[in-house]
């Protein structure tokens, strides 16, 4: 494992316990994955294939049944609670539903200042206005509450909150699937841009191959909790080896139009 | 059988009665007196009580004689049997009396502590020997209800309560859990057979509900109507009977503790209270102002009473700020809250600082018994026999539950009174005791005697209520 390894997952298994039936369900079954600094890795797969579960377990925010996770050179099993908490700002998550990711009772400004209070040193690098400018929002947004923001605006605020921490790894869980196409393009641009400037790594979860193709260097294809194919994006998407990947590609809408372009 | 429809139908030979509470148990040995109205139709006391509340020879015991100071000999009516065939003889009386005296659960236990032995030399002779002389043994026998020894032994208190058997004018008929209890005429009664074929007792804790039941013709007699309901019943044209009861409401002063250990303060409190105002203002005249403690019989008043004198009360207090807690049993007696408040208001007027302390009846009794209370508590004396010793033993002796006035002298006087040959001879001593407690030491501020009211439906006649909470149904006719 090199110095620059941001995330190393080995044989990760996550089992969920279903509330009602109390039966366990294996959402992730033996996944290994390694990410170097600056890597952008896309995770694709059908709904329920365990993408979110994988990401949450990888960052130590979600449950894990077995397997080893090495986050920024720290073995998650060996970390005390406090150490884990200190490590956490290094990894930030952007979720699909931007409104659900913001406390409805907190204005954008007070959300920022809470983060600043939590991590004074880490967040001192930028002021609110500038931070918002980075995600192409005006300072007037500062005094707004989440319900006063549009989906795109709210998602930008979420990204800004993630960037504020200057994380070394950003996990984006379908950050644009709730958004309009045109807004989606904006947000993706933004993500690309800020990654370029901060040098953070990105674990990008999506079911949209085209989006992944635009954002990620490497891609992991998941099916039923297992990785069926992984490799550089262009290689996997242009020359798929696994049936499922092929099926995914074939199902992509707009092939007719793309082909004709 | 027919009992299923009994509550609903009104018929000429059924009398439907609504009581204020479900009779707790129909076992007279352990049962509270509130159930007496019901069980007394089936079971009879050893001695019958007349309208003057004195013993009569018309009951199971037909004659008595005080053989000597300590020995009484009674003659039982001959040939009386319980409805199950057991003979109601002297042996049965001895059995009942021994249970009354010896069982821990016996409700009358404390009244029979003086009895040394009960004997039945023959079937109709009962001999009672007492430790100390006691002239009112005959009266006390009016509270003892005769139960069949074998049957009681066999069934136990639970079984007996479920189907009581006695010598009375009625036979236990049926009990419908929680709804009613019915008794039917005893064809083999030793005396005159009852007029009405059947009595059905039901109950409702709310007075207005009892009246409503009567007015909507669901029952024929509604017992225990407080003044407000008596007025209403009157207005509704019902036949209301209001009788002065023997129940006395008394304010007790705990004179062995502050603040009433100061005689002036106690006197001031006694002088502050205007019982006529209470009777008029709260009861609209439907209560009787009562000035004494030991005047057991309704309609009697002692010669010396304390009358309200506000000026003097204030003078005695001399501007002192005295705090008086007033405890009373919430909800236990008619309008007791208002009475407590009115008394409190009067004390306040005299210059006392009043604090109310309402509690439930059981706690009040426990706290009085435990000597936990100070100041004033309002409480009722409900005699089941019209003898002054009831109140003396209950309240005036130093070993009594209240213990607020007792002293060796009063104990001696009490002993002396009860050992007199008869009531007349004892009267003077009781008058003196009453004066000590009420007038001199102001341990008691007697307030009023309740007027017991009940109403009957059209055509119901001859429901005879006795102030000792007994009702004679034998002559009742319906419609």
């Amino acid at each position: 494992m090199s110095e620059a390894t941001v995330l190393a997952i080995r044989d990760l298994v996550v089992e969920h316990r279903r509330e009602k039936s109390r039966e366990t369900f294996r959402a992730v079954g033996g996944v290994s994955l390694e990410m170097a600094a600056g890597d952008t890795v896309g995770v694709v797969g059908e709904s329920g294939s365990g993408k979110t579960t994988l990401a949450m377990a990888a960052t130590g925010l979600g449950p894990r049944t077995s397997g080893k996770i090495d986050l920024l050179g720290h073995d998650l099993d060996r970390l005390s609670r406090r150490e884990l908490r200190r490590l956490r700002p290094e990894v930030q998550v952007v979720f699909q539903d931007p409104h659900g990711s913001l406390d409805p009772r907190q204005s954008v400004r007070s959300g920022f200042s809470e983060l600043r209070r939590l991590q004074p040193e880490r967040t001192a690098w930028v002021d609110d206005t500038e931070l918002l400018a980075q995600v192409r929002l005006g300072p007037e947004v500062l005094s707004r509450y989440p319900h006063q923001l549009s989906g795109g605006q709210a998602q930008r605020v979420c990204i800004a909150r993630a960037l504020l921490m200057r994380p070394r790894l950003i996990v984006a869980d379908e950050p644009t699937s709730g958004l309009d196409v045109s807004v989606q393009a904006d947000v993706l641009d933004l993500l690309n841009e800020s990654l370029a400037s901060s040098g953070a790594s990105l674990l990008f979860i999506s079911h949209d191959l085209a989006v992944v193709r635009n954002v990620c260097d490497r891609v992991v294809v998941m099916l039923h909790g297992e990785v069926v194919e992984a490799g550089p994006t262009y290689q996997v998407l242009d020359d798929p080896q696994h049936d499922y990947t092929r099926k995914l590609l074939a199902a992509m809408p707009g092939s007719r139009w793309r082909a004709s372009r | 059988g027919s009992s299923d429809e009994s509550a609903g139908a009104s018929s000429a030979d059924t009398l439907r009665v609504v009581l204020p509470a479900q009779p707790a148990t129909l076992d007279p040995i352990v049962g509270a007196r509130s159930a007496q109205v019901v069980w007394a139709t089936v079971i009879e006391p050893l001695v019958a009580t007349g309208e003057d509340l004195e013993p009569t020879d018309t009951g199971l015991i037909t004659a008595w004689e005080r053989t000597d100071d300590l020995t009484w000999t009674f003659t039982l009516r001959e040939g009386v049997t319980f409805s199950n065939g057991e003979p109601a003889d002297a042996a049965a009386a001895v059995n009942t009396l021994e249970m009354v005296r010896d069982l821990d659960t016996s409700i009358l236990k404390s009244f029979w502590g003086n009895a040394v032995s009960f004997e039945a030399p023959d079937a109709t002779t009962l001999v009672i020997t007492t430790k100390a002389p006691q002239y009112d043994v005959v009266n006390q026998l009016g509270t003892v209800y005769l139960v069949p020894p074998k049957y009681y032994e066999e069934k136990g208190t639970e079984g007996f309560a479920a189907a009581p058997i006695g010598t009375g004018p009625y036979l236990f008929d049926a009990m419908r859990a929680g709804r009613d209890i019915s008794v039917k005429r005893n064809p083999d009664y030793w005396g005159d057979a009852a007029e009405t074929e059947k009595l059905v007792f039901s109950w409702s804790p709310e007075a207005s509900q009892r009246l409503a039941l009567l007015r909507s013709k669901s029952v024929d007699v509604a017992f225990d109507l407080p003044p407000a309901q008596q007025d209403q019943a009157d207005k509704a044209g019902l036949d209301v009977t209001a009788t002065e009861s023997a129940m006395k409401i008394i304010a007790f002063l705990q004179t062995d503790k502050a603040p009433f250990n100061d005689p002036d303060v106690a006197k001031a409190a006694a002088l502050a209270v205007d019982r006529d105002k209470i009777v008029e203002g709260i009861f609209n005249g439907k209560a009787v102002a009562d000035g004494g403690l030991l005047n057991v019989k309704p309609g009697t008043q002692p010669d010396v009473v304390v009358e309200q004198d506000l000026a003097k009360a204030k003078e005695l207090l001399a501007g002192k700020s005295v705090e008086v807690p007033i405890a009373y049993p919430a909800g236990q007696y008619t309008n007791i809250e208002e009475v407590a408040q009115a008394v409190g208001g009067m004390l306040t007027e005299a210059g006392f600082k009043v604090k109310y302390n309402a509690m439930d009846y059981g706690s009040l009794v426990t706290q009085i018994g435990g000597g936990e209370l100070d100041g004033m508590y309002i409480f009722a004396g409900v005699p089941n026999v019209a003898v002054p010793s009831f109140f003396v033993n209950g309240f005036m002796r130093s070993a009594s539950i209240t213990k607020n006035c007792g002293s060796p002298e009063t104990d001696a006087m009490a002993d002396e009174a009860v050992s007199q040959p008869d009531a007349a001879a004892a009267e003077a001593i009781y008058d003196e005791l009453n004066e000590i407690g009420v007038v001199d030491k102001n341990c008691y501020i007697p307030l009023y005697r309740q007027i017991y009211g009940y109403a009957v439906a059209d055509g119901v006649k001859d429901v005879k209520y006795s102030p000792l909470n007994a009702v004679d149904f034998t002559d009742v006719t319906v419609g």
Partner: protein
Amino acid sequence: MTDTIAAVPAESAAATMSGAPRKRRRTNRTSVFWLALPLVLLAVAVIVLPMTGWLHDPNKQNLDNTLAPPAFLDGGSWSHPLGTGRLGQDILAQLVAGGRLTLFIGFVGALVAIGPGTLIGVTAGYCRGWVDVVISRVIDAQLALPFILIALAVIANRGSSLPVLFLVLALTGWAPCARVTRSVAMSLRERQFVMGLRAAGASELRIVARHVLPNLVGTVVALGSLQVGTAILVESALSFLGMGILPPDISWGAMLSSGQDVLSNAWWVAAFPGLAITAVVLMVNLLGDALLTHNDPRKRRR
């Protein structure tokens, strides 16, 4: 069983009748204001009025003038606008004094139930695990006990007094509240912003204190206002059974029960407090409803 128990409150909490479609949110906010206003005015009135000296002493007895009718009836006089009670006390003055205590009982009674209830509910809902299991069982058990019997038994032992009344209200009111707050806390815990805060290194305590509790405020306030009505009704029921507020303290419930006896010849003794109780409970229920709707995230968003 936990599942149903958890499922019910969310729904019963949302059991609101004044729920307006989401496009009328603003109406809702103003309606909250207009519903709260009379209550506040009433509270101010019952506090201020006795200070003005216009009213009689509510405990002043006059046994010579009991059950005088209100001024607007034959035989009434304006010195006692609403008539007099069983000891000749001025009903208006009693109504004001009773209002003070009744509102006090309502609000404090709600507070003592909602406070612990919320804390317990949040603890269970947020901690999950065995803490949740234990608390849930206790909540279930508590809910299984007939509350009026608890109330009566406690009062029977401790006597009726304000502290005991509050104890009773707390004992009987915490569980339903805990049940609701537990399920809300549970769902808040799963919200993504909580995850985000955790990712930012916030401690669980901070998340609960700064984010979970504030987001519960609306629910709690709404529950509380409904509990105010419950407390008032419970007090009046206990008074009716002779185990509520006892003289000389005056509550509407106590007035109601003392007027019960004389209903047919002096209806005013019971009628005014009865109306007052109904009106106030109605108002707090309306307010609680409006708050719940106002607070319903589904109706709030956007």
